[in-house]
């Protein structure tokens, strides 16, 4: 299996975003550098547990927005929390790779139009 990444994207002016954009939303420059957050520790900004989930999504579904910092620039990501784990605002978490976050055949979005693997978070 190739090495998995949780890439944030940086432009020449140092603005960092996750996910990638066609042009940097801050300054309009190209995003020509990646920063892998997969091995980094982040901090929970907020979280929720959703009990009414769409077709193909685990129920309940605990989600967190997590803030990472890379070379003095901060960047956030959203993701599921690993099943059975609980988090609070301010907790430190690490990304954990998952091959399939929801059933790509069950929802309205065309399966081939996007990726379905990614990173969940667990307490560090």
């Amino acid at each position, binding site marked *: 299996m190739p090495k998995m990444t949780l890439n944030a994207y940086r432009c020449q002016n140092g603005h960092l975003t996750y*996910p990638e954009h066609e042009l940097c939303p801050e300054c309009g420059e190209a995003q020509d550098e990646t920063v892998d957050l997969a091995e980094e520790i982040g901090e929970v900004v907020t979280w929720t547990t*959703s009990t*009414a989930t769409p077709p193909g999504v685990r129920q309940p579904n605990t989600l967190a927005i997590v803030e990472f910092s890379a070379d003095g620039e901060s960047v956030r990501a959203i993701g599921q929390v690993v099943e059975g784990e609980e988090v609070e605002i301010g907790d430190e978490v690490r990304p954990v790779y998952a091959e399939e976050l929801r059933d790509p055949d069950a929802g309205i979005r065309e399966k081939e139009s996007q990726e379905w693997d990614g990173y969940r978070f667990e307490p560090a």
Partner: protein
Amino acid sequence: MDRVAIIGASMTQFGKREAWVRGLLAQAGRECLADADVAPDDVEHLYVSNMASGEFEGQTGVPNALAHDLGALPAYTQRVDQTSASGGAGIYAAWQSVASGASEMTLLVGGEKMTHRSTAEATDVIASLTHPVEYKHGVTLPSFAGLTARRYLHEYDAPRESLAKVAVKNHKNGLDNPHAQFRKEVDLETVMDSPIVADPLRLYDFCPITDGSAALLFCPESVAEDHVPEDEYTVVAGIGGATDTHVVHERDDPTVMGGAVESSEQAYEMADRSPDDVDVAELHDMFTILEFLQSEAVGFFEQGEGWKAVEEGVTDRDGDLPINTSGGLKSKGHPLGASGIAQAYELHQQLLGNAGPRQVEAEVGLACNVGGFGNCVTTTILEDA
């Protein structure tokens, strides 16, 4: 400049309806033309606000269908989709059509048919507006509300009960709205004990899934009195629209609704008004937390203080600044494409003194219509003529 007048308004019963999208739109369109006594073939532009008739029902091309069903041929037609803010975006399009001189009679009809779908399916249709990195994690609009509400309560030391009080207030207002889906009072305990939907938010923090339609009729103010008496029309004094990030977690401060800040500044400037001038407001309370965020973003209250206004009764119907006298999306229901237009319908009735038991004293009204989780927002300021 000749201002743009609203000479007719209508809304259908909101709730679970037997009619499909064409029937709902046709009902509101017909009743709106009748309200102003304008013939269908006088309509020059026809705009239809609708998010997802294709996805919900397999019926696309609804503007053309409506023009034919109403006898409004050969009017120019266009569908306006801005997700939950399709109604507000339709007001913007209708205003542009008249203000630019392209049309002297513009009918705007918004509607959505949703209740034939399960909650899970309807939630997925709406969640399809999210970015792939959000969608793959099963992120829904209600989950954005839970994430943001937790951050808001944490940052501003607001009690959980303050959110529940928005639901209590808006349900109380909806009791007097014959078009509302829910005409039922709820008490604080009921809201606080209802099942968790997106922690810390509970069932009564969310609007229902709804069928319904609403419509407005626009013309230049200079000819408004050719159609209706002077005291029977309102004017679009200001309007603005703006977008915020598609990816919600990329916002600097998740408790600031940037699109509402920007669009309201534009609307105030056009109307030469400030937040202090507003007498009554309809805010997009798809979730209770959104009423706080918008009441701060449009400048009624300082950031982090919106919850206090609800606690102190400022936004009650008999308060200094009544918010959601219609019952809001919370009790009235939220047929996506209709909601922004139904907000303006309420303001129109309030400004004309036609709001019956919901009537408050008002000369200036503001409506804020939100798509996505603040991804795209329109703000409209209506005044009596």
